[in-house]
C-alpha cells in the first residue's frame, strides 16, 4: 500500500476541500432565508444563488476527484495483492497443495481480497469523509447554537452504535444465508446427478422432503434477515425524525423568544440531515475495516507460508540415467506408500511399472520428477541427487504425462504448446501425429484454435489424454514419464501410439505405468509393485515365466478385453 501514498494523500486533500466547501451550503441557505425575511438588506437573491451553485459545482468536482483517487487506489491495491498471492502460490511446495483444499485457497483469493479492497478503498474514503464532514458539521452547528447542537451530540453516538450492531448482524445472517443457499444448490446438483438412483429406488418424495427441509431453513434465515433489514432503515428514519422534532421544539421556542432566526433553524435542520449519512457510515465503516483486517490476516497466512519449494544449483544436460536409493515415502499422517525402493535405470532404457490401485505406482513416478519429495532415500539423475539440481534444469529434462489429463481453458493449440510456446510448426505437428490427436482436430470446427473447457468444447477422455501426450512429447525431453495415461484410449489407438512412441523414445529414458499390461510388453524392464515394494522385476517374457502376479494379471486382462472390447473385430 505504501506505493500509493501519493494517491491517498491527494485523495485525503480532496476530501478535506470537498467537505469544507460542502459545509457552507446550508449556512448560505440559512443566511439567504434570514435576509429574505429582512427584505434582502445584505445581498441580492442572485448573489446567494450564485454562491450556492458555485459551492455545489466546485465541491462536485472535488468529490469526483476524491472518488477517483481513493476508490481507484483500492483497485490498484487489489490487483497487486492478487498478483502477490499468485506469485506466492507458484513458489509453494506440493505439500502445501496437498494440505489445503482448492476451495479454501480460492475463497482467500476472492472473498478475502475483496474484503481488504473494501476496507482500503470505500472504507478509507468513507472514514475520512465521515470524520471531516462530521467534524465540520458539528463545528458549524456549535458556532450557531450550543443548545441545539446538544440534540445532535446525543443522537450521534446512539445511532452509530445501533448501525454498528445491526450491520454486524446483517453480515452474519448474510453469511448464514449464503451457506444455506449453497446447500440448496448442492442438493439440486446432487439430485440431478444421481437421478438414476433416486428414480430407481422411487425416492423422489423422500428427496423432495429433504429439499423442503432445506428450503424451510433458508426461509427462516431469510426472514430474520428481512426483519432486521426492515427494522433498520425505518428505525434510522424515525431516529432522525425524532431529532428533527426535538430540534423543531427547541428552535421554535428560541425563535418565539427572539433568540434564533428562522434561517438559522433551516440551516441547522439541513446540517442535521447532512450528518445523517456520516453517522450511519461510522457504524458501517467500522465493520468494513474489521472485515478487511480479518481478510488481510487470512491472506498473510498464505503470503507468509514458509513451506516453499527448494532447489539446488547444479546444471547440465546429460544422458538421463535414473537411480533410486532406498526410497521410502508416506503421505502426511498416512501409512508408508513406498518402502525401501532401489532401482537402477540406464539412460535410454524403457521401464514398465505395474501394480494394482494403491500399490504406489503414481507416487513412485511423482518422486522421480520431484513432484513429491521422499522422506528417506534419494533419487539421482545422472548421478546427481534431484534436490541438488536447479528445478528449471530438471524440468527441462523431464516431461510427464500425469494420470488425470489436466488441460487448461485455452485453445487446444496453446494446451499442446504449454511447455514450449515457441516450438516450430514442424515439431508441433509431429508431436500431435505421434499422440494421434491430429486426426481428431480435423473434425473440430475451429481445429487447433478450438477453446477447451467451460466456455468451449468438451473433449472426450481419450482426446484429453492424447492431447497431454502431445504436450509432453513436444518438450523433447531426455526423460519421459507416462503415468497410466492411456486408460481412456481404445485398444487399437493405444497400440498405434505405443508404436509411434517407441520410435520417438529411442535414446530417451522412459517410464510407463499402466493398468493395461499390453502397453508394456516391449519395455526393457518391468517392475511389479505390491504394497509399496518391488515384488517382481524382469522383461515381459521373464515375468510370464515367473507365473506371479504379473502373469496372472496379464491373462485376466486378455480375457476381459475380449469380453468388453473384442466386438470391434466382428463389426
Amino acid at each position: 500500500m505504501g506505493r500509493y501514498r501519493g494517491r491517498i494523500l491527494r485523495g485525503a486533500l480532496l476530501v478535506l476541500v470537498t467537505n469544507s466547501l460542502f459545509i457552507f451550503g446550508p449556512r448560505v441557505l440559512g443566511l439567504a432565508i434570514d435576509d429574505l425575511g429582512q427584505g434582502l438588506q445584505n445581498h441580492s437573491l442572485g448573489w446567494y444563488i450564485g454562491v450556492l451553485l458555485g459551492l455545489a459545482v466546485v465541491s462536485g468536482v472535488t468529490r469526483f476527484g476524491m472518488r477517483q483517487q481513493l476508490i481507484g487506489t483500492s483497485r490498484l491495491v487489489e490487483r497487486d495483492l492478487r498478483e502477490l498471492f499468485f506469485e506466492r502460490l507458484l513458489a509453494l511446495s506440493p505439500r502445501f497443495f496437498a494440505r489445503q483444499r482448492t476451495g479454501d485457497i480460492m475463497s482467500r483469493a476472492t472473498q478475502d481480497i475483496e474484503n481488504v479492497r473494501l476496507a482500503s478503498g470505500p472504507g478509507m474514503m468513507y472514514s475520512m469523509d465521515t470524520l471531516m464532514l462530521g467534524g465540520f458539521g458539528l463545528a458549524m452547528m456549535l458556532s450557531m447554537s450550543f443548545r441545539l447542537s446538544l440534540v445532535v451530540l446525543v443522537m450521534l453516538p446512539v445511532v452509530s452504535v445501533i448501525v454498528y450492531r445491526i450491520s454486524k448482524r446483517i453480515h452474519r445472517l448474510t453469511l448464514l444465508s449464503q451457506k444455506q443457499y449453497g446447500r440448496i444448490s448442492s442438493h439440486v446438483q446432487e439430485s440431478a446427478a444421481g437421478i438414476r438412483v433416486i428414480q430407481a429406488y422411487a425416492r423422489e418424495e423422500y428427496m423432495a422432503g429433504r429439499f423442503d427441509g432445506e428450503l424451510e431453513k433458508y426461509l427462516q434465515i431469510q426472514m430474520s434477515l428481512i426483519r432486521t433489514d426492515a427494522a433498520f432503515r425505518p428505525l434510522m428514519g424515525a431516529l432522525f425524525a425524532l431529532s428533527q422534532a426535538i430540534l423543531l421544539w427547541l428552535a421554535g421556542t428560541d425563535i418565539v423568544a427572539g433568540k434564533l432566526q428562522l434561517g438559522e433553524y433551516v440551516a441547522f435542520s439541513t446540517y442535521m440531515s447532512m450528518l445523517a449519512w456520516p453517522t450511519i457510515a461510522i457504524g458501517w465503516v467500522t465493520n468494513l475495516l474489521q472485515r478487511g483486517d480479518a481478510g488481510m490476516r487470512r491472506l498473510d497466512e498464505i503470503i507468509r507460508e514458509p513451506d516453499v519449494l527448494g532447489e539446488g544449483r547444479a546444471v547440465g544436460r546429460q544422458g538421463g540415467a535414473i537411480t533410486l536409493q532406498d526410497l521410502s515415502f508416506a503421505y502426511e499422517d498416512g501409512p508408508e506408500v513406498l518402502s525401501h525402493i532401489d532401482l537402477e535405470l540406464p539412460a535410454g532404457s524403457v521401464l514398465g511399472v505395474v501394480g494394482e490401485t494403491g500399490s504406489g505406482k503414481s507416487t513412485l513416478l511423482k518422486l522421480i520428477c520431484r513432484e513429491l519429495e521422499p522422506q528417506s532415500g534419494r533419487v539421482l539423475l545422472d548421478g546427481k541427487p534431484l534436490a541438488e539440481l536447479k528445478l528449471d534444469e530438471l524440468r527441462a529434462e523431464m516431461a510427464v504425462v500425469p494420470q488425470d489429463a489436466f488441460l487448461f481453458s485455452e485453445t487446444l493449440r496453446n494446451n499442446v504448446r504449454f511447455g514450449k510456446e515457441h516450438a516450430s510448426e514442424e515439431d508441433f505437428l509431429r508431436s500431435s501425429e505421434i499422440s494421434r490427436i491430429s486426426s481428431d482436430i480435423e473434425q473440430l470446427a475451429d481445429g487447433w484454435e478450438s477453446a477447451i473447457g467451460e466456455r468451449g468444447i468438451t473433449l472426450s477422455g481419450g482426446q484429453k489424454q492424447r492431447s497431454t501426450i502431445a504436450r509432453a512429447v513436444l518438450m523433447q525431453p531426455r526423460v519421459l514419464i507416462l503415468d497410466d495415461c492411456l486408460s481412456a484410449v481404445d485398444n487399437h489407438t493405444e497400440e498405434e501410439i505405443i508404436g509411434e512412441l517407441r520410435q520417438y523414445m529411442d535414446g530417451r529414458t522412459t517410464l510407463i505405468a499402466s493398468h493395461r499390461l499390453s502397453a508394456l510388453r516391449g519395455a526393457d524392464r518391468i517392475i511389479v509393485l505390491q504394497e509399496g515394494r518391488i515384488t517382481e522385476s524382469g522383461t515381459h517374457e521373464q515375468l510370464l515365466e515367473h507365473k506371479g502376479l504379473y502373469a496372472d494379471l496379464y491373462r485376466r486382462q486378455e480375457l476381459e478385453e475380449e469380453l468388453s472390447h473384442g466386438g470391434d473385430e466382428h463389426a
Partner: protein
Amino acid sequence: MPDRRDVKGLDWSLLKRLTGMLRPYGWMAAGAFSLIICAALFETAIPLVTRHAIDVDIAGGDLEGLRGTILVFLLLVAGGFVTRYFQQVLTGFIGQRIVVDLRRSLYRRVTSMQMGWFDRTPVGQIMTRLTNDVENLNQLFTGGLILIFQDILSLVLIVGVLFWMDWRLALMLLAVVPVIMLATFQFKKLVRAAFRRVRALVADVNTFLQENITGMAVVRLFRREARNREIFEQINTRLMDEHLRTIFYFAVFFPLMEVLGSVATAGVLWVGGGRVLDGVLTFGTLVAFLNYAERFFRPIRDLAEKYNILQNAMAAAERVFEILDRHPTITGGEQLLPKLKGEIVFEHVHFSYEKGIPVLKDISFRVSAGSSTALVGYTGSGKSTIASLLLRFYEPQQGRILLDGVDLRDYRLDELRRRMAIVLQDVFLFQGTLWDNICLGEDYPEERVREAARRTGLLDWVDGKAEGFHTEVSERGQSLSGGQRQLVSFARALAHNPDLLLLDEATSSVDTRSEGLIQEAIAELLKGRTSVVIAHRLSTIQQADQILVLHHGELVESGTHRELMDHEGIYHRLWMLQSRNGAAASNGKPEA
C-alpha cells in the same frame, strides 16, 4: 448464461401469470399494499406539519400550538416507522413463500421427468433454474413490483402536494426531473455494460486461478511459472482497468446528482425567494418545498433500477415456466403391486435413444420367476438399455414388456420401482452418512441394515469406523475406495430386499482384496431372487440359469451354459478363451 437472454422487454401475459402467483397470499398482498399507502401518506405529510409549525405556531408565537404540532409530527413518524416495518416484513414474507412454492414444484417436476430429458439437459442448467432464476423472480415480488408501486405513489403524492402549495415552484422543481432521468438512464446503461465486462473478466481471473491451483503440478512440470504469472498479470490488469472505468462513471454520477440537487434548491430559492418578498409565499411553504425537493429525487433514481429488475425477472420467469409447463412423458398406471414373483417377458421390443439409430431390435425373451439371467455382449450391444427399460427409465418404441403377466405401463411407477433394485456400474453416493446412503430415507430397523452390510461384507469395515454407520461420506463419496463404494451400493440394494434385482457389474479394476469381497457379495445378492445381471465376470455368467448374448442390439444367442457351448457361437468363443487362460494361470483361481 448468455447476457442477452437476461434482458427482456415487458411481457404482459407473463406478468399476469406472475401476479397470479400472489393469489394464495391475496390478503397479505392486499395488506402490504394498504401499508404502503399508509406509509406514503404519513411520510408525505411530515413536511406539511413542519410548515404549519413555522407559519402558524412559530410565526404566531404560539408555543402551546407548537407543542401540539410536534406531537402530530411524532405520531406521523411513529406511524411511518411501524407501517414501513410491517410492510417490509410482509412483502419479504410473501416473496420468500413464493420462492419456496416455486422451488418445491420445480424440484418435484424435475425429479419426475423421464430419463431422456436428463440426457438432454445439463445438470448446470437445472441448477440455474432452481437457484438463480428463482432468486431473480423473488426480486420481482420483494424488490420489483411493490417498490415500483411505492415509488410512483410517493412521486404522485409529492407532486400533488407541491402543486397544491404553489404551482409555480412545483414547475420549477419539476424542470430538473428530465435532466435527472436522462443522466440516470445514461449512467445505468454505461454501468450495466461495464459490469457485464467486469463479470466476464472476474470469471476469467477466477478460472485461471482455480485451474492453476488444481493444475499446479502441470504448471511446474512444464516450467510455466514465469509465463503464467505474466498471463495472470495481463488479465488482472485488464480487470483493474475495467474497474477503474466503472469508478469513473460512479465518480461522475454521484457528484452530478448532488449538483443537480443544489440546482433544484437554488431554483426554489430563486423563484420562491421572490415570491416570499412579494408576500405571496410563506416561509413555511418555502422550507417545505426545500424539504420535498430532497425526498423527490430518490424515487426517480430508483425507478431506473427497478425497471432493470423487472427485465431480469421476466427472462428468469420465462425459463422457470418452461420447466413447469413440461410434463413427464413416462407416468405410471393404476395397478398396485403387493409382491412380485418376478417373471419378465420381453415381446418384440424395439428401442432407440435417437431416431434412426436402433439400440434394441426386436428383442423377445422370458425370465422365469426366481431365476437368474446373465446378459453378455460387447460394449454398445444394448445390455444396459434392457435394465433401463425394465425400470421404465425409457419407453420402448415398439413391443411391450410384461412383469408377472401385466404390462409394465399398467403398474404404478413408484410401486414398480420399489419392488426392484438396481446396482449401477458407476456407484452414486449422496452427501450424508453411510446409513443414509444404504437406507435412502427408508425407515429400516437397525438389524436389517446391519444384516445387509454383513452379507455384503461391509460390516467389519463399518464397525471399524469410529462413527460406524454414521460416518459421513464426503463430496460424492470421494473418501471411500472404489471397492468400498461398490459394497455400499450392494448393501443398499440388499437392504431394500427387492423382488427383482438388476445388477450392472462394474468393469473398473479394484484391488485384489476388494475384488474377492465383491465376488462374494454378488453371490449373496443374487441368492433366492429373480435377477438380471449385466455380466463382466465369468463366474457370474457360469452360474446363471439363462444366458442372453446380445450383439449390435439383437439377441443372437440364448440358453444355458451347456446349450450355448453346443451352439459354438460367440459365447463358445469366450468360453474357450477362458479355459485356455484358466489352464495358463491355474493358481487355484477358478474365476479367471
